[in-house]
């Protein structure tokens, strides 16, 4: 399945996001410009080495340079590289500018924790509950606000996540311990997960399948194994999966409500937050 080639363009993993083709095209453009400059310089170098090698009777000329030539070879790369930068800026805006973030079809929270990825889905009400770092504990990684009713039905998953195909996904990304980097090679997207900040990442997957999620920022000895899996599913499959998760969460909440005393049904997250604040 794997053929060796000196052409690095053959090594891209299959692209499966709406912008992966455009980003690969940009890479190809820069690649071919680089190949042209590379050949220009190396061929010139080799020709000069052969042509002006020392041999009996051969002499160098007395020459200190030429300002016109200097001007030309200053201007040419300036125009080329500045043009390339300005041209590329559009794709940068598409991928990263918050002002260009598409309207989300689905929003999830993702946090990195050495050495796992965790995701939070909105649950039955379709709304992610409020969160704040002060509520964070080892049991409540997302710092879900225990007083916000929207947070009660939120679903937290670790390692393997499902998302619908052809939908704008917005990931609110953070970390609970050290820096991580959320890297989906097939989607051509990468973003550092920074503790203390929530950063928006968006993508829209075009082809159902299982894709690997990697950590790309050194986060400790288990960094290499901080692997996750993203299942990109059809709408129908995703809805079924989501319904099953919602039902399971409901069952858990009901069981918790039954086990706590009948007069006050304190949610588990609030209990933990209270416990941790007294521990402080």
């Amino acid at each position, binding site marked *: 399945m794997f053929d*060796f080639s000196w052409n690095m363009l053959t090594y891209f993993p299959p692209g499966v996001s709406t912008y992966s083709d455009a980003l690969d095209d*940009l890479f190809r453009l820069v690649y071919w410009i680089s190949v042209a400059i590379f050949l220009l*310089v190396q061929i010139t170098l080799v020709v000069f080495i052969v042509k002006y090698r020392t041999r009996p009777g051969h002499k160098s000329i007395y020459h*200190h340079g030429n300002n016109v030539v200097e001007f030309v070879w200053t201007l040419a790369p300036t125009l080329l*590289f500045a043009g390339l930068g300005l041209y590329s800026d559009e794709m940068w805006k598409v991928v*990263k500018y918050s002002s260009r973030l598409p309207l989300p079809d689905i929003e999830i929270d993702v946090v990195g924790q050495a050495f796992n990825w965790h995701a939070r889905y909105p649950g039955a009400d379709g709304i992610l509950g409020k969160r704040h770092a002060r509520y964070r504990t080892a049991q409540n990684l997302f*710092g879900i606000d225990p007083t916000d009713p929207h947070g009660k039905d939120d679903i937290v998953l670790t390692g393997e996540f499902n998302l619908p195909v052809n939908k704008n996904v917005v990931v609110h990304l953070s970390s609970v311990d050290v820096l991580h980097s959320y890297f989906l*090679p097939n989607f051509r997207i990468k973003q550092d997960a920074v503790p203390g900040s929530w950063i928006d990442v968006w993508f829209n997957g075009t082809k159902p399948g299982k894709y690997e999620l990697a950590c790309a920022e050194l986060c400790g000895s288990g*960094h290499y194994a901080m692997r996750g899996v993203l299942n990109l599913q059809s709408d129908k499959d995703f809805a079924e999966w989501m319904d099953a998760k919602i039902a399971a969460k409901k069952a858990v909440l009901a069981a918790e409500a039954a086990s706590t005393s009948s007069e006050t049904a304190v949610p588990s997250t609030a209990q933990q937050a209270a416990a941790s604040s007294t521990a402080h």
Partner: protein
Amino acid sequence: MSAASTYAEHADTLTHDAHSHVGHHSVSFIRKYIFSTDHKTIAKQFLTSSLFFLLVGGAFALFIRWQLAYPGEPIPIVGKWLPETFVSNGAVQPGFYTQLVTMHATIMIFFVIIPLATGAFANFCIPLMIGTDDMAMPTVNMISFWLVPVAGLTVMSGFFVEGGAAASGWTSYPPLSASGTGHMLWVIGIFLVGFSSILGGMNYLATVLNKRAKGMRMFDLPLTVWALFITSILQVLGTPVLASAAALLFVDQVFHAGIFIPENLLTPTGGLYPSGAHVGAGGGGQPVLFQHLFWFYSHPAVYIMILPVMGVVSDVLATFARKAIFGYKAMVFAIMAIAFLGFVVWGHHMFLSGMSPLLGTTFMLSTIVIAVPSSIKVFNWLGTIWKGNIHFTTPSLNALGFIATFVVGGLSGVFMAIGPIDVYIHDTYFIVAHIHYVLFGGALFGIFAGLYYWYPKMFGKMYNETLGKFHFALTFITFNLCFFPMHMIGVGGHMRRIHDPYVYEFLKPFQPINQFITVFAILMGLAQLLLVFNFLWSLKYGRPAPRNPWRANTLEWAAPAHPGHGNFDRDITVYRAPYEYASPESKRDYLPQWIRPPYIEKEKTVSVS
């Protein structure tokens, strides 16, 4: 009668002469060889310590390569000797692996390339090339060297403490780097080596500005000196920022100040970081601040490593092409432009750090513009060998090899300068390939060029040319076969700093390429034994060097073959620019800076004390 015939007086520059001891007075062994203030001895000390650290850092690289090619298999030869905290059954453990990548880069950058480029070459070349007896501040110079081994051993001592050496990459990003004894030792070491840089830089600036030989204008300086001069400005302005970043990180490590640690953060073991308790709700530090401080120094540091080498390559090419530098002033201005732009591009290391994407656009444009002065330099080098008379010696081959590989490193830099492309290749093997093309293919080939070029003046002996050429050829071939394929697996998405890539399905097919790379990494390591052998063998058995073996124009070749303390055995006055090769004024194809033109009356000379 042509003016040229009266230049016969400099024929003596070709004669062999005995070791000179100008200005030499008897000093104790310790003052002469250990706590010496002679810039040449200090240069050799920098050279020795850097070559030692080069071997250590190279060995670490081979451990890393072994693990990537054959994960879980015992390291050959040394595996069984390493303690169980580092290896299990002789194979690299994940924690040890992260220490190895951290220490490999830390050693190579802070204890090999920077001390070689700005320690060894600046010390050896600046006083000799500007025609003076020593540095402006010889004692400061001595301190600047002795900080390096102390700092290096401090950083390396991490291997012997609980938890092991620093393991958060050479960038040492908090929060990961904010705990652990190894990280504290790393910070202390970097702080010390930073002061070595600052002291060195101040000294080089003072020396170039105040101690140039009579008649030497700034535009009579060889490009090596120009490059070192501008580099010194970078060191003096940039390194304090690194030192402040290190100091703040230390405050976080020891006093839990929470400067870089946000509120209510979990430790890797699941507890809370102590800082949260002190800062209070709503407070907290910002990890990205450290990255700004770090890269504000560490991007210019890339130029601290490459600019001096660009100067060396310029001098070597002019000498061996027997031709003046094409566009000398353009070269000087390009160095200045690179240095200036070097201070406004640090954000390209942080495209994905969570910094505002608006800043990403700014840094993308400033970064890509830095390709312009770099291109100017490449074109001018080509212009220099154009219609030259190229002699193929070990220094000139290394200099030509530098151009060939630097072009690859420069072009791969353009990919990462472009933000949207960087999104994908950031922190992959593409950047690993890039940095090695710049710092090994670039800086190290240039350093080899300089080392062979000045070896005769440093040690008074000629190195073995055949061995030198073999060393170059083997290094050049193995270097490219080792590092070029890293671009390819980088495009394949192969992350850097991962202990076992084959945890990922999409990286499994790359194992054969990793093995290919490892084979050539080992061969490249072995090829360096030729350098070590040549270096040591020639010290004892090398042919005695003439005063000016390369028939070069710059002032160091006016000094005796093996200059003693005080350097010059004659008065030095500079009469012309440094690259008067093939000048119609002279019958020979070179015309040194110190040769008095016939139309100037011989002046009364005062002998040097």
